[in-house]
C-alpha cells in the first residue's frame, strides 16, 4: 500500500505466484518494511489493539451465532443455554459482551489520541473521516447486538432508539414501522437485527481496509506532528519494531479485557437484562450501555424530540468537520499550550456527559447536561476555529529525529 514493492520471493514457486498475484509484496511493503515514525508512543498501539478486537468480536460472534436463536420466544433461553450447556459457552459469551465494551474503550482512546496529536489535519482528512464511519458502524452494530439477548434492557433500548426515527418530520412514523416490521419492536425486529448484526462487522472490516490504505498513503502521524523527512533518520521498519511494540500493547490490553471477562463479567452490563423482555412493563430506569452515555445525555439535554435527535447526530457531525474546524497549522498538542488545556477540558466534558447520561433526568442533572452539551458544541464550533487564529504555538521541531534528539517528543526543549 506504500507504492511499488521491491519484494522478491526467494523460491521459484513464490516468484511464479508473485508475478500473478503480488499479495506477498503488498503485505511486505505494508506491514514489514513500511517506514514507521520512530517516536511513536504506546498510544499508537491502539490501532493494532482495535484490529485485534475486531477479529476477536467476529470470531466469538460467529461462534455464538452457532448456538443462538433469533426468536422472541427462544432468544433469552438460547443465551442461557450458551451460558450453561455449550462447551466454554459462558466464556465465549462473556468475551463477546465485554469485548464490545473493550472495543469502544479502545476506539475512544484511539479517537482521543488522534484529537490530541492533530491526526485529522491535512493530508489525513479522509483517513479521519473513514475512522468516523467505522465508529458509526460500530455503534449500529453494538446497538443491534445488545438487542439480541432479548432482556428488558434489550427490548426497551431497542424501543427507545428506534423511536428516535419518529422524530423525522412527515415520514418518521413510516420509517419506524418499516424498521420494526410491525407496530412495535417484536419478532421481525429481532430477526432483522440479528441479520444486520452479523453483516455490519464485515462492512467494518471493509472500511478498516480503506482506513489502513489511506493511512499507508499519507503515512502515520506522530507525537511531534511533523512528517517523515528522512526515512533513515526518522523511521524504523514496521516489522519488527512496530509489530513488537503493538504486541506489548495488545498483551496489556488483553489483561484488562480478561480481568473483566473472568472476574467482573457483569460489571459493565445492566442487571435488568437478566430479566426476559416484557413489552408490557418498562424498567424504572432505562440506561444504554456506557459507551453511548455521552450521546444519550446530549439527546436528553435538548427539550425537543427532533432537536435532541439532531444534536445527538450533530455531535458526530462535529467529528466529521473537525479537520476544517481546527484552524491551527500545528498538529500536535505538544506544541499548543492552550489547545492542550482545552483538549483535557473537552475530555472532562465528555466524561461528565457520560456520567449525566447514566443519571435519571431530574433536577440539576438536566441543567448540567445542557451546559456540557453547549460546551461540547462550543468546543468545536467556536473555540477550535478561534484558537488557531490567536494561539501562539511553541516552535515545532524540524524533523522527527530532531524531536527525539532534544529529549523526546513529550517535553521538547526550547531551541
Amino acid at each position, binding site marked *: 500500500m506504500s507504492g511499488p514493492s521491491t519484494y522478491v520471493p526467494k523460491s521459484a514457486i513464490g516468484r511464479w505466484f508473485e508475478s500473478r498475484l503480488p499479495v506477498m509484496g503488498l503485505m511486505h511493503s505494508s506491514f514489514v518494511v513500511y517506514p514507521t515514525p520512530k517516536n511513536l508512543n504506546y498510544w499508537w498501539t491502539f490501532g493494532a489493539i482495535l484490529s485485534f478486537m475486531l477479529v476477536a468480536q467476529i470470531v466469538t460472534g460467529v461462534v455464538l451465532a452457532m448456538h443462538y436463536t433469533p426468536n422472541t420466544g427462544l432468544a433469552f433461553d438460547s443465551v442461557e443455554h450458551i451460558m450453561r450447556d*455449550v462447551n466454554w459457552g459462558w466464556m*465465549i459469551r462473556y468475551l463477546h459482551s465485554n469485548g464490545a465494551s473493550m472495543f469502544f474503550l479502545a476506539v475512544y482512546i484511539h479517537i482521543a489520541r488522534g484529537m490530541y496529536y492533530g491526526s485529522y489535519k491535512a493530508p489525513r482528512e479522509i483517513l479521519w473521516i473513514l475512522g468516523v464511519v467505522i465508529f458509526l458502524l460500530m455503534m449500529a452494530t453494538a446497538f443491534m447486538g445488545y438487542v439480541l439477548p432479548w432482556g428488558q434492557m434489550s427490548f426497551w433500548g431497542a424501543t427507545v432508539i428506534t423511536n428516535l426515527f419518529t422524530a423525522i418530520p412527515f415520514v418518521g412514523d413510516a420509517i419506524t414501522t418499516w424498521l420494526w416490521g410491525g407496530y412495535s419492536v417484536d419478532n421481525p425486529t429481532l430477526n432483522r437485527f440479528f441479520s444486520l448484526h452479523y453483516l455490519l462487522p464485515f462492512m467494518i472490516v471493509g472500511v478498516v481496509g480503506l482506513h489502513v490504505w489511506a493511512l499507508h498513503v499519507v503515512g502515520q502521524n506522530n507525537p511531534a506532528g511533523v512528517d517523515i523527512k528522512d526515512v533513515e533518520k526518522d523511521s524504523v521498519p514496521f516489522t519488527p519494531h512496530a509489530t513488537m511494540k503493538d504486541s506489548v500493547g495488545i498483551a496489556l490490553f488483553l489483561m484488562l479485557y480478561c480481568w473483566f471477562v473472568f472476574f467482573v463479567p457483569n460489571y459493565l452490563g445492566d442487571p435488568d437484562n437478566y430479566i426476559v423482555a416484557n413489552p408490557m412493563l418498562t424498567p424504572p430506569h432505562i440506561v444504554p450501555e456506557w459507551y453511548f452515555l455521552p450521546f444519550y445525555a446530549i439527546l436528553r439535554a435538548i427539550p425537543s424530540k427532533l432537536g435532541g435527535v439532531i444534536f445527538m447526530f450533530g455531535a458526530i457531525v462535529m467529528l466529521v468537520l473537525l479537520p476544517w474546524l481546527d484552524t491551527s497549522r500545528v498538529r500536535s498538542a505538544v506544541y499548543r499550550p492552550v489547545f492542550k488545556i482545552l483538549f483535557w477540558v473537552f475530555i472532562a466534558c465528555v466524561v461528565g456527559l457520560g456520567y449525566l447520561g447514566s443519571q435519571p433526568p431530574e433536577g440539576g442533572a438536566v441543567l448540567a447536561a445542557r451546559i456540557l452539551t453547549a460546551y461540547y458544541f462550543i468546543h468545536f464550533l467556536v473555540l477550535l476555529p478561534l484558537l488557531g487564529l490567536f494561539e501562539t504555538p511553541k516552535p515545532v521541531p524540524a524533523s522527527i529525529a530532531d524531536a527525539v534528539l532534544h529529549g523526546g517528543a513529550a517535553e521538547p526543549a526550547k531551541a
Partner: protein
Amino acid sequence: MATSTAEPTRRDMLYIATGAATAVATGAAIWPFIAQMNPDASTLALSSTELDIGAIPEGQIVTVKWRGKPVFVRHRTKKEIEEAENVQLSQLPDPQADSARVKKPEWLVVIGICTHLGCIPLGHQGAYDGWFCPCHGSVYDTSGRIRQGPAPRNLDVPDYAFLTDTKIKIG
C-alpha cells in the same frame, strides 16, 4: 540503524521463548472455540431413549428416534430368524453371526442408517426381505447385514438393554 552482534545466543533465546510462548498461548486460546462445536451438556443428557416393545406384533418394524437418528426395532418371525441364522458367514461381505447382533432372537435392534451414505433403508423390501436402501440400492437381510450393493458394513447395532421383557432402553 546499526545492527548489534553482541550476545547473539541470549538474544536468540529471548526470541525463541517469546515465539514459543505465543504459539502455546494461541493454541490454548483456540481450543475452546473448537470444543464449543462438540455436543453440549443438554444434548449429552438426552442420550438414552426408552421404548415399550410389548405392543409390537410379530413381523412388524417400529422406528424410534435416538440421538436424532432412526432406530429400527424389529419383532422377527420364526422364518426371519431362521433365515438370519442359517446363512453361511463366508457368503457375507461383512461376516457376522446373527447371534452376535441380537440379545433375544425375536428382537433385532439396529440403527436405521445405511452404512453407505446415510439414507434410511426401507423395511420388508429387497431380495432378502430385510431392508432395501432406495438411494443406491444396498440390500440388507433380516439381521440387518449387508448382502448386496455399495454399503461397506452391516447396519450398526446401538447399545441397548432389556429393562423388562417388554421394555428396552437404547443408549
